[in-house]
């Protein structure tokens, strides 16, 4: 029997190791798996790479993880927020490496990883200094830049409801990066608000089929 529901964050994060890349869902604070991400801090793993659209806000979730010093590197599009104290302080003393990626390219690179695509050409950023050092190609008279897949060792995502097969539905704009990160994580862990009986979720409206989800934790 398939039962992806695990008991507690220890089981949810089992197997995480030094140097892992974590894909952390959410846009601003919406759709971010605060408790799950914060549970990483206590694991004793370090030199993590955190992939997240932003860099957390205040002292919770991704911001708390960054503040803990466990992450060596942040891959993001917009490390600013309503309360950017943590990232601003880390950046000021160069205590974290930042790789800045345009938001759509960030999403597409994760999708490529999840989809078995070896890389793709996009016009986004091609004629900017974010393309420095990257392969450029003119296609149909327009300049494109080559971007590589961005897989995660873990995807730490948030969803509204799940069933024991790991099927997920989200709520409104809390969907954002979570489905694409689920595709790109070698181990995808979903923090969910509710676990429902198998067969309850509308098969036409499941936003993340369980094939992309390894563990579900209620929080």
């Amino acid at each position, binding site marked *: 029997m398939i039962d992806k529901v695990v008991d507690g964050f220890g089981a949810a994060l089992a197997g995480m190791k030094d140097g892992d890349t974590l894909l952390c869902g959410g846009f601003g604070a*919406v759709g971010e798996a605060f408790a799950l991400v914060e549970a990483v801090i206590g694991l004793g793993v370090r030199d993590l790479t955190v992939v997240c659209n932003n860099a957390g806000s205040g002292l919770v979730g991704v911001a708390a993880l960054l503040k803990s010093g466990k992450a060596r590197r942040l891959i993001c599009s917009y490390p600013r927020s309503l309360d950017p104290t943590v990232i601003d302080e880390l950046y000021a003393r160069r205590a974290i490496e930042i790789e800045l990626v345009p938001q759509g390219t960030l999403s597409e690179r994760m999708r490529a990883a999840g989809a078995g695509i070896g890389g793709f050409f996009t016009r986004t950023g091609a004629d900017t200094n974010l393309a420095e050092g990257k392969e450029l190609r003119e296609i149909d008279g327009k300049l494109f830049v080559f971007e590589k897949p961005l897989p995660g060792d873990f995807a730490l995502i948030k969803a509204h409801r799940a069933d024991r097969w790991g099927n997920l539905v989200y709520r409104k704009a809390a969907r954002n*990066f979570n489905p694409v990160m689920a595709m790109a994580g070698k181990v995808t862990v979903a923090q969910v608000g509710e676990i429902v009986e198998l067969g309850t979720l509308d098969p036409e409206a499941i936003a993340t089929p369980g094939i992309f989800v390894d563990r579900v934790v209620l929080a």
Partner: protein
Amino acid sequence: MRPLSRRQMAWRCAQDLGDGQYVNLGIGMPTLVSDYLPPDREIVLHSENGILGMGGAPKPGEEDPDLINAGRGKATLLPGGSFFHHNDSFLMIRGGHIDVSIMGAYEVSAAGDLANWATDGDTRAPGVGGAMDLAAGAKEVRVLMEHNGKDGSKRIRDVCTLPLTAKGCVTRIYTNLAVLDVTRDGVVVREMIEGLDLETLQKLTEPKLVLSKDWKRIGTPNLQ
């Protein structure tokens, strides 16, 4: 001469949006455009965080924590609206499905180059967000910005001095002084505020301006 307020700029910008257009509003001043959409037109607002058919701000007490716009303000959904994930959202942007992207800017060049993500001497970590995707992907990019910097610096330039967001993408600029089109024949002045003449505007603008034959005064309601 009285420069337009931010709300007047947003109002003017909103008047050019057509019935049935799919429009993305950038963070900052462009967000205000949603308050002035012409009521006789259906304009579908796209929000990069996975929303089509976004409505205005919710009434007090009706805010939904899971329903925010790209600037992280609380939002609503219109009938006909839909939610989708980030990848589909940027597929819409990159794939040319967005008719108009309205963004703020630090500088725009005479060739329509856009610089709106990095400033000189920013001590904070750089942030680009979705600006490069929108600049490269939207069918049309329109800029909404103060005509000059707070220090009086020129922001419509022969060549941008700041890092680019994309080349040759801007077609129209709404400032607190004028409405200008970026064309192959140069930067064309379509509208100026009451009391402003071309000579004065030219002094505030680097590229040589062309006055449109049918130029007119910007008329906006009194919005502060």
